[in-house]
């Protein structure tokens, strides 16, 4: 694809987004919807910019990000560890596989009331929910990535005298990195969504709580602001991880 085709693709892609915002604006200005129901985009983004500068809103973002990253990091550590061991050890695989089969399609959000009862209304229950949701894509992608490592690589490492334990870290783990990073990207966006939903269901702070508070008082503008903030956070984090991925995989053929 040459540069001109890429530019025209990008321009084409901007059309529906611009159209959506134009319709959003038009519905308001033509008087089909009052601003209390659907505030015009200009108003929402102005409010967003204004809120981002206030101390309280920054604290809400910080609370959400803290839960998000703690949960995500735990999920990465646990998921990669279990995934690696399940892929390389048949005995562990025999135990992990059926359990994952059962737990992966289980709607984790249904566990949230139980987590509330067991861990209380603070950070712990939300972080645990994030871990439960982000764990499976990371675990599965690690497992799939590590099971597809070429046997020849492992044999060569063994022939070169690498001890069995080191093969895991020197051969299997690096070979599985592209797949692991894909899983991490999915897990990260899921974490963003889940932490927000958990905060909406019960919370005293965080972005989700801001939305619920606004909904109770029918402040439509303030309902859009946290929703857009969390979506932007998801987009930015997704982009950062994508950047990290292409940096880490800069020698690899396109995967």
């Amino acid at each position: 694809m040459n540069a001109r085709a890429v530019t025209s693709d990008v321009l084409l892609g901007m059309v529906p987004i611009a159209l959506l915002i134009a319709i959003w604006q038009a519905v308001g200005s033509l008087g089909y919807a009052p601003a209390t129901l659907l505030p015009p985009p200009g108003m929402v983004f102005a409010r967003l910019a204004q809120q981002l500068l206030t101390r309280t809103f920054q604290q809400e973002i910080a609370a959400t990000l803290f839960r998000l990253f703690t949960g995500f990091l735990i999920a990465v550590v646990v998921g990669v560890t279990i995934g690696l061991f399940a892929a390389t050890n048949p005995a562990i695989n025999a135990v992990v596989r059926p359990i994952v089969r059962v737990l992966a399609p289980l709607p984790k959000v249904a566990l949230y009331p139980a987590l509330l009862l067991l861990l209380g209304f603070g950070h712990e229950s939300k972080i645990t929910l994030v871990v439960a949701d982000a764990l499976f894509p990371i675990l599965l992608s690690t497992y799939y990535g590590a099971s597809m490592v070429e046997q020849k690589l492992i044999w060569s490492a063994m022939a070169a005298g690498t001890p069995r334990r080191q093969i895991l870290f020197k051969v299997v783990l690096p070979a599985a990195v592209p797949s692991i990073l894909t899983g991490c990207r999915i897990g990260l966006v899921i974490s963003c969504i889940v932490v927000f939903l958990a905060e909406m269901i019960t919370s005293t702070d965080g972005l989700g709580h801001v939305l619920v508070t606004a909904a109770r008082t029918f402040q439509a503008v303030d309902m859009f602001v946290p929703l857009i903030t969390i979506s932007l956070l998801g987009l930015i984090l997704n982009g950062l991880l994508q950047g990290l991925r292409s940096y880490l995989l800069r020698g690899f053929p396109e995967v």
Partner: protein
Amino acid sequence: MMLGRPLLARSAPLLACLGLLGIWQVAALIINTDSFPTALDAIRAIPSILGDKESLINILASLRRMAIGFGVAVIVSIPLGLMMGRSRAVAAFFNPLLMVTYPVPKAALMPIIMLWLGVGDLAKMLVIFLGVSLPVIYHSFQGAKAVEEKMLWSGAAMGLSAAQRMIRIVLPAALPEILTGCRTGLVLALITMVTSEMIARQSGAGNILFNALDMGQYDTVYAMIIIIGAMGIGLDAAFENMRGRLVKWSEPGFDIPLSFA
């Protein structure tokens, strides 16, 4: 050995279920607080929920909304995804929009959509529709993109029109991938349904769960969790069974899709 292995492989998920319930039972006995009943107590509370007419109607109404939201999403998303996979212009047109909407928590739209559409079924079905569409579009897109050009050329050479090529070549070739998307979408529909009901707190399975929590009926809370969990596992298993029959010829790359959220 020949007979024993598949039997063991087939019963492994069941054993896993029993194992998890066993761990729960032991953990509850050790912790021994009111807010964490044993697995047996929770299972004993299930018949009273399913036997209660009002909660049964509530759960069935939830499932009906889920089925409609899922069905409409699949009908709209598959053709869109296939067209995106076969036409670069269509893909370039929709891709950025889908990328931007991907990290939006769909169930969180519930309060806003309720402002517009009221608290009725329509708002809930719309949210489920939004939640299901993205993975189905994405997988149909990937499936259609991977169709071998040569097959399309032979089809064109034999005089198939563009529409016929789409239905007779692209659709079957992309079917395994489409079904993977639908499988993810189905579990997502259930998740979105439960979440939106937890947020809106009007009716449905999610609402029963939180009402029981508020009233301190802990057995009911855990029984509801088992019911919803069983729905997820059951729907996924049933769909996987159907998928296996429909596309017997295709070896699935991954036997569990990466993302269910």
